[in-house]
């Protein structure tokens, strides 16, 4: 029996076609599968350089924790979640560039973040232009005001909620103080905060005298002129919306003047707990408000968030924005699953009216104006507790206002939501 010889030509043919099939298998078919399994991309803008980095870096970390939890549980509809994180340098012009880069070059499906409303509001026109969902983690009421947009959401507490709650808290706890003054950063957030604090006093029909209003540049280095002017005004109570780096600088510079002995009440409407961590034992007993405070709520998700943060990064998740970025990722994940797609219009519809639980409590997204509304707004007075290396709220002083009660009524927002 003649042995069948395999000619070189046949050999090449067989091997060649085998290689073709194998090639098709490795490159062709799985490409189709890969398309379905392509990660879902969330773009994030926060401030990770400069003196505001102490708020932005935890923002990135909060989102990373949410990403870990989601991906360990199998991702979103079987697709992995990928974060693309960019530093906005707290500059609106940089924020706009980075927003454009995230959408056009990184081709992200959704964008969230920002520490400063100045940056976030600058991104709103781009969200509209590119028809991309943008969830803000900064606080301005303008996101959900007269210029509200179907593409734009604010994940949580707004400036008006935090500032009015601060006023309510002062009326309840320091009713004897009639002479008030304000020191606020000279940009949209500072001006809004001060206006809403005064409005909160009016709403409670609390008669007060405003003895001094001052606005310092954002990132101000020298607060001494403002401190002496505040002291000269003989204010008994001082409201501030300076945040993190600015507030730390202010407190450090005001202490040698005996500022916190001369002023009976000092109240801050944002990032207070991060400030307390930043100041350590140089802290002073003031009334603070923070969108997230890790020791208030004993829920499973809060314990998990705190323990994952400690394991991955060390320390406590002190910054408000960390929890808000966590919440943004969770909200998007739930909405995508509810919609069954990443299609923008359908995810918008799914986000509207969404209720979900995050470390800071339950959140609800009001469908009419896309305003995130927290279960409660929490304030407290800081005191020294030997259990921690930083000051914490004295639990006896917890002051809460339900979010739905303090949220700006729809009739006042001026928002007329368009169709996406």
């Amino acid at each position: 029996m003649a042995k069948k010889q395999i000619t070189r030509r046949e050999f090449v043919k067989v091997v060649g076609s085998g290689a073709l099939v194998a090639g098709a298998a490795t490159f062709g078919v799985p490409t189709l599968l890969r398309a379905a399994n392509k990660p879902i991309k969330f773009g994030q803008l926060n401030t990770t350089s400069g003196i505001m980095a102490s708020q932005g870096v935890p923002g990135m970390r909060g989102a990373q924790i949410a990403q870990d939890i989601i991906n360990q549980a199998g991702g979103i509809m079987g697709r992995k979640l990928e974060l693309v994180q960019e530093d906005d340098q707290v500059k609106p012009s940089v924020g706009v560039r980075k927003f454009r880069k995230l959408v056009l070059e990184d081709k992200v499906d959704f964008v969230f973040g920002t520490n400063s409303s100045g940056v976030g509001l600058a991104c709103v026109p781009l969200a509209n232009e590119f028809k991309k969902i943008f969830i803000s983690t900064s606080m301005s009421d303008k996101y959900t005001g007269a210029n509200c947009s179907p593409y734009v959401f604010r994940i949580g507490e707004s400036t008006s909620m935090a500032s009015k709650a601060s006023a309510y808290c002062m009326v309840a706890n320091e009713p004897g103080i009639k002479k008030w003054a304000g020191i606020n950063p000279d940009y949209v957030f500072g001006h809004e905060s001060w206006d809403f604090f005064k409005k909160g006093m009016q709403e409670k029909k609390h008669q007060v005298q405003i003895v001094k209003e001052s606005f310092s540049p954002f990132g101000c280095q020298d607060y001494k002129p403002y401190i002496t002017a505040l002291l000269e005004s003989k204010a008994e109570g001082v409201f501030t919306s300076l945040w993190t780096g600015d507030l730390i600088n202010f407190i450090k510079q005001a202490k040698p003047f005996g500022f916190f002995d001369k002023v009976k009440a000092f109240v801050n409407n944002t990032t207070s707990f991060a400030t307390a961590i930043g100041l350590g034992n140089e802290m002073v007993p003031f009334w603070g408000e923070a969108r997230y405070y890790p020791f208030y709520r004993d829920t499973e998700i809060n314990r998990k968030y705190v323990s994952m943060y400690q394991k991955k990064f060390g320390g406590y998740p002190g910054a408000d924005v960390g929890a808000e970025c966590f919440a943004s990722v969770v909200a998007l994940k739930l909405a995508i699953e509810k919609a069954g797609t990443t299609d923008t219009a359908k995810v918008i519809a799914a986000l509207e009216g969404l209720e979900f639980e995050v470390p800071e409590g339950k959140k609800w997204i009001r469908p009419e104006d896309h305003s995130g509304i927290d279960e409660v707004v929490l304030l407290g007075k800081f005191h020294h507790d030997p259990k921690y290396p930083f000051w914490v709220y004295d639990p006896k002083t917890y002051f809460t206002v339900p979010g739905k009660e303090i949220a700006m009524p729809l009739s006042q927002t001026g928002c007329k939501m368009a169709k996406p």
Partner: protein
Amino acid sequence: MPPKPQNFKNPIIWFFVSLVVLWAAPLFLPTFYIYLITEILIVSLFAVSTNVLLGFTGLLSFGQVAFFGSSAYAVSLLIKGTSLPFAASFFLSVGISTLAALIIGLFCMRLRGFYFAILTLAFSQIFFVVVYKWTSLTGGDDGIVGIPKKPFLFFDINGADAYYHFVMFVVMVSLALLYLIIRSPLGEVLQAIRDNSERTEFLGLQVRNYRLASFVIAGTFGGVAGALFAPFQGIVTPELLHWSHSAEPLMISLLGGMYFFFGPIAGAVIFVFIKEWITGFTEYWMFWYGLLLMLLIMYLPGGIMGFVSEHLKRGKDDSR
């Protein structure tokens, strides 16, 4: 000295070649790069206009943002606050920069060298503080947000590609005009002033007036760049008018080669790309840019164009 005809022949060909290539760019480049090139074009125009002072008149001005910024703010306010057509707002804003350059120039021309640089810096800081503090008009630190791209005459310039074409057209025309100015007898006088102002004065030329003319030209075209920039970014903030922004066109000119008309354009290409790419990895992109600039000044004092032209010359000499 009248320009030699062969000097004009090549630039005209180059002008049309680059016009065609740039015009076609959106056909083969993704939108992200169209944005980058738009920015490069605007930054180029700003740098070339500044270089009319720096490289061709020998005047170091630290205040060129005053003209870029005032026109950017003017065009934004006119677009958002009035119903004027965009073309009118555009030319009005450029006119404002021209006027500002004329007024500031009249003051600054009394001084020279270091004092001139400091006075221009002071004037630009006045613009900065006015914009920063006049919150009711300029939005203060928040700036003016959401500046739309309204149609220019009959052309719809809304959208990345359309606006790119508009910017390209305006920048190319402006660059051509600046080139003609530099090659004109006026440009020759300016370069004579740069090389030896006393000698030029002895020739009976009013050095101060020529310097003023150069200052106004630089301010006007800086204003054109500013008026293009505002609708492009969709936002203007006081940062635009900060003195540190004035250093940008100077560094770009140094990088590209300040004794060459096209130097700042080469510099702008590299500057914008470095800014875009290195900021992706680190926020300290200025560190790397500074390092590059240091190396260039130490080893290539003529900038990129200086290096290129040196090599071209050497090549020609060898072939002879």
